[in-house]
């Protein structure tokens, strides 16, 4: 890296650290308070002191032993994962065509079909639930995976289309000069280039399935694949009164796995990003 002046470097670092601290404090201040509240006995949940006077594991015991929240965390994981993988199969090929193929009227066509994406999804839950019950997707994991695509496909299409469109136009041609077929050009050249974007899409998509309440509640019964969000809502927030300390425990339990997953996935992510950098 080339030498930069000390002053510029100092300003640069200060700005970066200030930004980081600002954003982290937006997250960590509320969450540390939540984390500590999770250890407060019921009598103390509205004490505004940060540290509990008396540390209590009551809420944790209730969450793990009585509600067995961990079982539902697993359901959420599968729900998120399936949704993420499915979304790639639906969105990537279409986005590739819309992003790269020169077809007359393509833009108009794209905008016409995507107008429907603006449709308030809260109004879609009724037709979807009815259809799912009729075709047997109700109370099944695939039913949830497909339903989540409502939230996912719109943005996945948008982002991927933009990404593909911005790649140099000659890429496939070069690949085909070297003997690739159309499909191979897509599979061997375009997909690897899109990997960073696809990975972050996968992750966002996973998070959508992981945290969704609307469909998970509408489309499942107690015997089916109920996700942690539903159980969390039903046990802690759905009544007139909120069970605060239980809510806090469950919030931590639902919030931390994706974060760990992301941290663990870092290495892999860095590798995929590194491919682009050189």
């Amino acid at each position, binding site marked *: 890296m080339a030498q930069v002046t000390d002053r510029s470097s100092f300003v640069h670092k200060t700005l970066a650290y200030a*930004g980081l601290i600002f954003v982290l404090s937006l997250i960590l201040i509320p969450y540390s308070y939540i984390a500590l509240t999770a250890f407060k006995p019921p009598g103390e949940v509205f004490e505004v002191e940060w540290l509990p006077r008396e540390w209590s594991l009551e809420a944790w015991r209730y969450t793990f032993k009585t509600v067995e929240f961990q079982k539902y965390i697993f359901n959420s994981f599968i729900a998120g994962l399936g949704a993420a993988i499915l979304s790639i199969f639906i969105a990537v090929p279409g986005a590739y065509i819309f992003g790269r193929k020169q077809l007359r009227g393509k833009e108009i066509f794209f*905008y016409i079909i995507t107008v429907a994406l603006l*449709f308030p999804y809260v109004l879609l839950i009724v037709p979807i639930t009815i259809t799912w019950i009729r075709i047997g997707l109700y109370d099944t994991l695939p039913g949830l995976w497909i339903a989540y695509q409502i939230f996912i496909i719109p943005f996945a299409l948008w982002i991927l289309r933009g990404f593909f469109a911005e790649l140099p136009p000659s890429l496939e041609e070069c690949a085909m000069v070297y003997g690739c077929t*159309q499909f191979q050009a897509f599979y061997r050249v375009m997909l690897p280039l899109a990997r960073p974007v696809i990975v972050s899409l996968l992750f966002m998509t996973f998070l959508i399935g992981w945290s969704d309440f609307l469909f998970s509640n509408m489309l499942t019964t107690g015997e089916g694949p109920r996700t942690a969000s539903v159980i969390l809502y039903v046990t802690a927030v759905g009544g007139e009164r909120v069970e*605060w300390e239980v809510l806090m425990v469950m919030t931590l339990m639902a919030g931390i796995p994706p974060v760990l997953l992301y941290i663990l996935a870092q290495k892999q992510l860095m590798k995929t990003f590194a491919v682009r950098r050189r």
Partner: protein
Amino acid sequence: MIDTKPRTRETQFVSTREVGLWGRMLQGDRWLIILFLLPTLAFLIFLLWLPFLQGIWMSFHNWPFIGKPKWVGLQNYRDFVTASYFWTTIRATLIYSLSTVFQLGIALIAALALNQKFIPLKGIWWGIMLMPYAMPPVVTGAIWMYLLDPNLGMVTHYLIKLGILSEPIYWASDPTWAKWVITLVVSWTFWPFMFLIILSALQSIPESYYELAEVYGANLWQRFRTVTWPHIRGAVLAAFIIRIVWNLEKIDQPFQLTGGGPGYETSVLSVLTYRFAFLSGDFGMAFTVGIFLIAFMMILMIPFLRRFQILITQAGKRG
């Protein structure tokens, strides 16, 4: 699963020429195009377009949840425009839409800061950034209610203790504050989405570009303007457009925080849709409001959409 039989050179190079959609179907990569578009189109048509068209149809009816619908023409539209709360709800939706701007601000700061090489433990910080987005919005909404409670909450307590406030702000009962609080809570909850997109765009900028810029003596701002921004603006625009739509469709948190009140002051269009559809069981009105919401979003989006389209068209023409 895909046809990979060898082709002649001529058909392969057709992709550079503009051909009509149907003309293209007869040529070399027609199967690829058909196969690739199929899943996307099937999804869009069955899960979105059909309900969408049905929704427009329903907005011309008096459509109860259970029972026979009745054609009423434009009555629902007239009722909504003349309702006493029409302008209240439009005003609330306008303020609510600013959440997209706040999200962009936080996401840009976070992504730019975390993309610097000298920051240690990046992986952990990245992970933490996702926390607000990893929780069901109803849960983060409940937590903010708990933290922001004017009488019992921690935020009021410390703001008063630090001398920033002299007395609690009863935000939920104050029309102005209520709108800002729902906007800020939604901003806080969903900004990691933009963060991830912007970060992945930043990651794809080759390091050598920055090195080159530094060799030419570019300062921080110049490097941002000449290297960073051109590379991420496509992603920023795409994320921004998507969030305009998504933020305006969010219902859980505003409804939970204020119940749409006081009066109709925080009944943004999406909340009103929910109230009509499920509390009133009036689907005709719900879809009518939904169509106003779509119109509202389009008006906000069009400038950004045009910019985005120009951007990707240029990119396509660049060699």
